[in-house]
């Protein structure tokens, strides 16, 4: 069984209240399932605490059918309902189910919005920051190197581990909600030095410079290494936040990559030797022009019809820089009457886009700038959507399969052109 400190034992004994006790009970069961030896202290927790659709609340009707019931019975997996205090750890809420203003455009009902508003009031009342984004690191929660975090959201986890050098596993809802109360998470996996060493090597032989190519390389690598840690060397250049964001999201979707090393680029990989850290080197993969073409074809295998009626940008949520670029491409043009253009971001970044005039340019062109969610999370696409165009390998991996629609993958410029003409003209250059 996981070893406990005196303080952790007292938490289990109920000294800090029933909710913390139930949180520790869940964390002990989880640590034992993993085989963790002990816990690590964390004060940076990102999850989706307490939020639930109405049917989950109805499921717990006998327990009160409210936030308290859902948090106790679902989040803490407790047999009893307990009073839920303000969270003890610095905590934030990741993406949610709808835009707080444009929910009608997303096809949500009055009842659905009332349920969403109730959950959000409860989130704030429990001391949880309402970031409502899959990119907390773009909305005010930027961990530092070596910081032990407990984060959900695979694209944020891979960013935190690889680009920042923070330490988090890909946590789930129940473990993050518990960590918010207990300030603890099992000291397993990416919290430990040995677990962070590279396992397979990838050599990049074709230039990978812009975000479109970084996304395809990520998708290739996830498919190649699955959930292992790749060490990437070669012709990757122009690293930037948004390129890492798309690369990691793609690798986490096609495989399950939670950490990668890019030699000379990411902080735990000054050279290949350090990245592997003496670990045995596994398989070797090569990304060349042929591999690039195969990835492009795979991402576009769910696209047949060139008549695009929906363009979705913002997976993971767009940065201020990406919104500015979309506004630049759209300025003086208009979204086709046969298509819709929805761009997703966080509330924090939207405020910047409003102040900078970019949101206004998007609105004038007929695009909608939305926050909190995305089409895959909310299962919301414009009514009658048959063919979507996307600039995210992650979104094209998920959305067409979930919604039974076609999907195209291309550059942001390809997607904006499709939004304005209603035609897909993207191709691999």
């Amino acid at each position, binding site marked *: 069984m996981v070893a406990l400190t005196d303080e952790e034992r007292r938490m289990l004994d109920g000294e800090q209240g029933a909710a913390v006790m139930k949180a520790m009970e869940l964390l002990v069961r989880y640590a034992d*399932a*993993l085989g963790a030896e002990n816990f690590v202290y964390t004060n940076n927790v990102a999850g989706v605490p307490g939020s639930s659709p109405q049917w989950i609340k109805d499921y717990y009707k006998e327990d009160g059918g409210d936030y308290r019931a859902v948090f106790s019975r679902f989040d803490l*997996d407790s047999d009893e309902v307990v009073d839920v205090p303000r969270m003890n750890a610095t905590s934030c809420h990741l993406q949610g189910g709808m835009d707080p203003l444009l929910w009608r455009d997303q096809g949500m009902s009055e009842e659905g919005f009332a349920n969403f508003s109730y959950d959000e009031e409860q989130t704030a009342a429990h001391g949880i920051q309402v970031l409502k984004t899959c990119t907390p690191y773009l909305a005010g929660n930027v961990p530092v190197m070596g910081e032990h975090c407990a984060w959900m959201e695979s694209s944020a*986890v891979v960013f935190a581990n690889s680009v920042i050098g923070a330490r988090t596993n890909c946590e789930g*809802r129940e473990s993050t909600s518990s960590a918010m109360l207990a300030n603890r998470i099992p000291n397993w*996996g990416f919290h430990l030095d040995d677990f962070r060493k590279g396992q397979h090597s990838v050599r990049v032989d074709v230039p990978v410079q812009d975000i479109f190519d970084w996304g395809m390389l990520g998708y290739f690598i996830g498919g190649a290494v*699955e*959930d292992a840690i790749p060490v990437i060397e070669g012709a990757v250049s122009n690293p930037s936040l948004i390129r890492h964001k798309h690369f990691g999201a793609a690798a986490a979707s096609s495989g*399950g990559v939670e950490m990668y090393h890019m030699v000379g680029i990411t902080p735990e990989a000054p050279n290949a030797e350090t990245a592997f850290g003496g670990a045995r080197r596994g398989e070797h993969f090569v990304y060349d022009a042929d591999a690039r073409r195969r990835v492009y074809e795979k991402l576009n295998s769910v696209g047949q019809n060139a008549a695009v009626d929906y363009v979705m940008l913002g997976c993971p949520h767009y940065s201020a820089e990406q919104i500015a670029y979309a506004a630049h491409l759209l300025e003086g043009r208009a979204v086709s009457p046969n298509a819709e253009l929805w761009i997703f971001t966080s509330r924090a970044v939207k405020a910047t886009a409003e102040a900078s005039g970019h949101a206004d340019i998007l609105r004038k062109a007929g695009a909608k700038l939305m926050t909190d969610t995305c089409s895959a999370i909310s299962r919301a696409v414009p009514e009658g959507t048959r063919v979507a165009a996307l600039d995210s390998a992650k979104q094209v991996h998920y959305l067409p*399969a979930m919604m039974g629609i076609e999907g195209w993958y291309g550059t942001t410029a390809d997607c904006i052109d499709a939004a304005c003409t209603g035609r897909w003209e993207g191709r691999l250059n």
Partner: protein
Amino acid sequence: MAAIVDTKPDLVLHGRKVVGGVVEGEALVTKDTISGWGGVDPMSGTIIESHHELRGKSFAGKVLIFPGAKGSSGWSVTFHTAKLAGCAPLALIFNIMTTKAALGAVVMRVPSMNEFDRDPTDCVETGDWVRVDADAGTLSVWKKQR
């Protein structure tokens, strides 16, 4: 589904307890890793991921034998929701430990095991009858073609 308790199993694998408990049932086996959120419809327990070997099949009431979990951090929520919908698997049997699979097993409260002496995805087939005794660390298998 009558329990087979009086015949000798064709095969007994030894592994590590992830979540304790004992259960018997029919095996559903795949060589493909499983995505939770976006890969499973929790309301029916059906695998929906494109190109997945088990696409269209439900794990509800089956002993799910698979290499490991992948994909979104919503893995545990998806399987937890499947439990609420009455569509949880009877047990989870897997090779690769991840936070996703561990947490999913914990919140579904189903017997679960990993780290076997032989790869269960090699020596158990869909339709075989299995007995998972996570407390004793054994997976007993009765082959279906007997």
